Each structure stands twice: as C-alpha cells, then as structure tokens.
C-alpha cells in the first residue's frame, strides 16, 4: 500500500460520488456527516475564540476599560458555553470518531446512519438557538449557571441557553449510542475486542460517559428552566430548595464531560505514537482498559468541584480520595506511551509533535488537578486563575492538541491530499509556545491570589496578564494556520497515497479518500493491532511529504 502512487484520474470516492448541497444535507454517509460536523464545530470554535480574545484584551490592563463588568460576565460565560458544549464535546467524537470508527473496525457505516444525520441536525438546531441567545443578550452566570443566581436573580437568557444545550446534549447522546452499537455489532470478521485500535477503545469509553452523563444535565436544565419560569423553589433556599442539589446534579454530568473531551484525544495519541515510533503500544491491554477505568472513576469524583460549597467534610474526604484515584489510569496511559517510545524509531512529523505536546501538557494539567483534589490546597487556590490554568491545560493543552494531531494524521485519508509538512510543524510549534505562554502565567496568578471571573485586578498582576494576552495572540495564529493550509491543500496539496505513513489499521488499507461504503470487499482481520514490526519503517521522505 505504501508504494501505491496517486492515480492520474481521480477514483470514485465519497467526496466526488455526488455533488450539490442536497447531497450533503441529506447524506447518511458517516464520512460526509463527519465533514458537516467539522465545518460546524470549526465555526463555533472561532466564535468561542473571539470571546476569549475579548477577555484577554480586557485583562491587558488592571482597570476595566475595554468592557464593563456586565459585558465581561457575559463574555466568559459565552466563551465557556460555546467551547464546552459546541466545540470540545463534539470535537473528536463527532468529526474524527464519526469518520474513523466504521473504517477502523471494517464496517460500511455506523449502525444507524439516519440517527447519525439526526444528531448533526440536533447540533445545528441547538447551535442556532445558542447563536440567537448570544446575539440578543447572552447569559452572565458563568457556564455553570449556578442557582439561585441563574433561576431567581439574573435577567439574562438562561432558558434559551438551556434549551440550546438540552438539544445539543441529545445530539451527543445519539453519537454515543451509535458508537456503542456499532462497536458491538459491526466489527469485521476477526476484529476481536483485543485487536481493536485504542482509538476505538477510547471512543467506547467516551460513549459510555456521553450516554450515562448527558441525560442528567438534560433533566437538570429542565428543572432550572421550570424553576425560573414558575418560581418553584426546587433550588432556591428562600423557598426551601437546596442549591447544593443543583451543583451535585450539574457536576454529575459536567465533571465526566471532561472525560468526553480528553478520552478521544487519548485515543488519537495512541494511534499517532504507535505510527511515528513504529512500535506496538506498550501494554496494549492496560491502555485499553485504563480508558474504561477513567470513564468509570470519572463518575465518582464530581463533588471535588464543591469542596468550598458547604458539603460535609466526610463526603469531601471520600471525593478527594476518589479524585486521586483517577490519576492511576491516567498515569498508566502516560507511562505506557512513554514506554512505547523507548527504543522506538521516532519520526518528528507534525502529528507526533502534537502528541509530544499532549504528553507534556496533559501531565501538567493532570498533576495540578491533584493539587485541586487535595483538601488542604484546594481552598487556597479554588476560584482563582490556578483553576482556570488547570482545566485549560487539560481541555486545550490535552483535548485540542489531540484533535489537531489527529486532524493532521488522518487528513490524507479524509481529503485525499497531503498537508504541507513544513507549515504543519511550524504551526504545532506555535501552538505549543502560544499555549504555554497563555496559561502558565495563570498558574502563578492564581497561586498568588488573582480570582477568576473579575474584569479588574490590582496593578501588581499586570505583567503576568500581559504575558498571557501575548500568548493568546500567538495561540490564535497557531490555530488559524492549520485552517488556512488545510483549505489550501484541498485544492493544491499533493494527492495522498492510500497509506502515506505506512501505518497499521484498516482505515489505511482502503483508498484515500475512501469510497462511500469504505471497503470494496469486507476485510478479514488476521493480525493483532499495531503490527508495526511487520510493516517496516516509515516511508522515505519524498514519497509521503506534501510539497
């Protein structure tokens, strides 16, 4: 496969089989739906990024000069809501997962193609309502919409934002449902559970979290909306309600939601590291099961978001201990990836650079998570920029790095074109530098006492804030670059061979881009995952690289 050269005449594939807007809007092909999602989440990513830009510009100076307090509250709220619900949660599962899950297990499509399309439409309906909500005033409660502020006091558009998130949540549930059924029932002959790529294991674990967590936030939103519209008192202490109950229900979903973001990213990293070190993943079974372990443990730690909210010390003790336990499967992954690289034949291509970035940033994000899980340290740093830095290291440093790495790794399969390697390496470097410059100063800021969610701050915090804003600018450039050269490569990129990286996995054995039903004949798997010792080395430079 590695030797296959691009055909002079384009072969029939999923992109050129049908033309016209309707052939996209009514498609049930998982690969086309993945591209529909790619376009929509990119749109929301840049909206969320625009809010982030305004936040960082306001924080350039200690006084509130660019925006007023109310506007600032809305900016960070809308930044959080858009990025969490409309970018991070759908990002890897709905784009790369949609595209790759059937390909990797040798299926023609997901089990329920029409449900898959329905999930995209639900996402678009939710997204449209969210856009309308933002354009007509937005929300100012923070993305956590804590009660009773959200139900009894704020006069912003809580119910509308709630409806948007409710609908987008069901889009997420449908994606998870499709993956679970597909992975159980649609595997090709010979594709046993122990031969599944780790990307599939990660998506299986993610789907479990989506399926069991999302309904709880949905019902919580129903209660918040009912309470706000009818003044019921379910969460309002003045009427006998319990605001802590809201926080429990909210975090029961919203903590595991972090694993919806990070687990698929871990799946990408496993694929990338195996390919660019030319080795089977060290401790395959442990890495596979650690995904399930993270998904299960992730459901048992939610109250570590509530240590200072007034929960009992005994509950806090248990949740603190369980939160530490999440470190175990996470560390299993990091150590096994590192062990995979040991004595591997490492190639420093762009996807691998993102994987390196992921390893370092996820480790920092994870370890600072332990600070926050610690009952003694948490009261000191909670609600400060330390928390902001911590979760951005996981969500942006972890999840987004994995997403970008995966987009580069599979771009030849998705588009049939090679991306420009030099530019891609440069972008990876810019993202890494920009990211650290943005968020590392925030650890220090938080530790010395700068609270989150304020639009003004004392003058002595300015230097670090200026650094952070400068970093955000660099990061923004790093994110724009891939969008530009991916679009460029769709027209001008060198046509990709079927398996440009000489990688293992069924998705590389079909043509680039694949045909509508993925495989000409049903594949039969007779080998273990990551059989790189049989595949030999990376293809020589000129053959695989674009331009």
């Amino acid at each position: 496969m590695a030797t296959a050269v691009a055909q002079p005449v384009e072969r029939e594939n999923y992109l050129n089989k049908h033309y016209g807007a309707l052939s996209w809007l009514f498609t049930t092909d998982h690969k086309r739906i993945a591209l529909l999602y790619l376009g929509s989440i990119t749109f929301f990513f840049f909206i969320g990024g625009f809010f982030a830009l305004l936040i960082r510009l306001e924080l350039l100076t200690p006084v509130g000069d660019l925006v007023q307090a109310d506007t600032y509250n809305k900016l960070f709220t809308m930044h959080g809501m858009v990025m969490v619900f409309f970018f991070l949660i759908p990002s890897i599962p709905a784009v790369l997962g949609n595209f790759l899950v059937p390909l990797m297990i040798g299926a023609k499509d997901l089990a329920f193609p029409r449900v898959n399309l329905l999930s995209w439409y639900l996402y678009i309906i939710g997204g449209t309502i969210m856009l309308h909500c933002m354009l007509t005033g937005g929300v100012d409660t923070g993305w956590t919409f804590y009660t009773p502020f959200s139900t009894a006091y704020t006069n912003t558009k809580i119910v509308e934002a709630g409806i948007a998130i409710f609908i987008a949540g069901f889009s997420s549930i449908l994606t998870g449902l499709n993956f679970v059924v597909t992975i159980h029932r649609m595997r090709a002959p010979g594709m046993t559970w122990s031969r599944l790529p780790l990307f599939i294991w990660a998506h299986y674990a993610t789907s479990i979290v989506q399926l069991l967590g999302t309904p709880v936030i949905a019902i919580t939103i129903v209660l918040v909306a009912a309470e706000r519209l009818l003044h019921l008192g379910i969460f309002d202490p003045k009427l006998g309600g319990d605001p802590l109950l809201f926080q429990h229900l909210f975090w029961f979903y919203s903590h595991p939601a972090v694993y919806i973001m990070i687990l698929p990213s871990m799946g990408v990293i496993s694929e990338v590291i195996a390919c660019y070190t030319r080795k089977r993943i060290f401790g395959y079974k442990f890495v596979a099961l650690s995904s399930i372990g993270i998904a299960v443990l992730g459901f048992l730690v939610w109250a570590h978001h509530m240590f200072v909210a007034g929960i009992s010390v005994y509950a806090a003790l248990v949740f603190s201990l369980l939160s530490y336990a999440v470190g175990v499967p996470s560390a299993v992954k990091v150590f096994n990836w590192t062990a995979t690289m040991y004595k591997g034949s490492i190639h420093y291509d762009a996807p691998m650079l993102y994987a390196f970035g992921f390893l370092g940033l996820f480790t920092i994000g994870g370890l600072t998570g332990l600070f926050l899980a610690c009952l003694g340290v948490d009261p000191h740093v909670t609600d400060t920029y330390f928390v902001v830095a911590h979760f951005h290291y996981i969500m942006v440093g972890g999840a987004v790095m994995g997403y970008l790495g995966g987009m580069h790794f599979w771009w030849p399969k998705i588009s049939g074109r090679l991306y420009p390697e030099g530019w891609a390496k440069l972008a990876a470097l810019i993202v890494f530098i920009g990211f650290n410059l943005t968020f590392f100063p925030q650890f220090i800021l938080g530790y010395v006492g700068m609270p989150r969610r304020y639009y003004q701050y004392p003058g002595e915090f300015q230097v670090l804030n200026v650094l952070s804003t400068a970093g955000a600018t660099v990061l923004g450039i790093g994110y724009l670059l891939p969008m530009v050269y991916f679009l460029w490569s769709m027209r001008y990129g060198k046509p990709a061979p079927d398996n440009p990286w000489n990688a293992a996995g069924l998705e590389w054995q079909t043509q680039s881009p694949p045909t509508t039903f993925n495989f000409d004949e049903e594949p039969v798997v007779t080998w273990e995952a990551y059989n790189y010792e049989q595949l030999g080395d990376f293809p020589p430079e000129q053959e695989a690289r674009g331009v």
Partner: protein
Amino acid sequence: MSDQAAAAVHAEGHNPALLHHFAEPEQQRDAASLGMWVFLATEVMFFGGLFCAYLIYRLKYFGDFGAASQTLNTALGAANTGVLICSSLTVVVAVWAAQTARRTLLITSLILTLILGFAFLGIKGIEYRDKFVEHHVPGPSFSFDSEPIPGHPGQFANPNHAQIYFALYFVMTGLHAVHMIIGIGIFVWLLALAWKGRLTPEYNTPVEIGGLYWHFVDIIWIYLFPLLYLIDKHK
C-alpha cells in the same frame, strides 16, 4: 428524546429489506435491539436525576411531602396503574402475534394498546384539572394553607415545601406523559406497518423495540405511583 426513540425505531423499520450496511438480517436486528436497550439506559439516567431530587427532598421535608401526597386522588392513580399493566399485556400479545403471523390479532392488540394509552392520558388529564382547581399547581397561584401533617396532630405543612413536592409531581408525571404521547406516536406508526402487512415473522423488529420502549414507560409509572401517591397511606 422521543425523536430518538422514534428515529431508532425508524432507522430500522423504514425499509423492510436489509439495509445496505448490514451483512445479514440478524445483525440488523441485533443492532436495533441493542440500540433501544442503550437508549433506555440513557432514559434511566434521565429520570434518575428526578428520582434523586425526590429522594433528597422527601427525606428533608418528610411530613410536608406526606401531607401533600394525601391530596392526590389515589383511586385515579391506581386505575391508571391498572390501565398501564393491561397495556403491557396487549404489547406482549402484539409482539407474539407479529412473530407468529397472526395479522388480525396483531392489529387488534395494537389498537387496544392505543386505547389504553389514551385512557391513561385522559385519566391523567382529569387529575391535572383537579390540581388546577385546588390551586395545587406550583407557581404564583399556588396555595396550600392549613393542611395537617399526617400523624402529627396540630402541625401544618409548610406551603413552600409542599410546593417542591408538587413541582416534582408535575415534572415527573409530565415527563412520563410526554413519553406516553411519544409511545402512542410509535404505536400509530406500528399500526400503519401492520395494516400494510409489513410486519412478518421474518421482519418484526419495529414492534419488538417499540414494545421495549412501551414497557419501559410503564415501569417508570410503576415507580412513580407508590412514590407520589402511596407514601402516607398507612397513617
């Protein structure tokens, strides 16, 4: 929610022939059935959040919840429980009739299921109307004055706490009723399929997974009835 349930049914049932991306009918049937079971697991979590809230407040405002529950019409609630249990029987008969090619029995039992579904909603509607008349609907017009707490002579329920009970009552039974309406929609569609002769011993997945959904909605009611109506009947 419903859309998914309907869509899950729909994805399978629209084309009686084997869909192109499945290797064999058995795989297609297994996938549909697993899909519905997984969907029902999400439904358990969906209602689970409400049951959790109910549990917290029942323990916190024990007497007030008892007092509030005594204002419900237990006879109508029990009648509705009977209606749903009967409808589960007619659903099972429908599945069996489809598997054994008894077309008349299939259509009869589907129609009976629909009648029982409408009967449930009708009775529920009467109960809701009574609550409106008594000003027990949470909101600005809510009133729950001087209602004695059962077992504690001389003590009266706190209207705010009773309002939480009624809020949960309306959200839980309302959500259940929404599921009933969706179920009725699914069964109307099944009836159309049966009428056209599309449900055969070889292909009856829609009635099977539609039945799973119906049973699930029944089971939710089996939990709602004692929690909302019967908690203080022993006093």
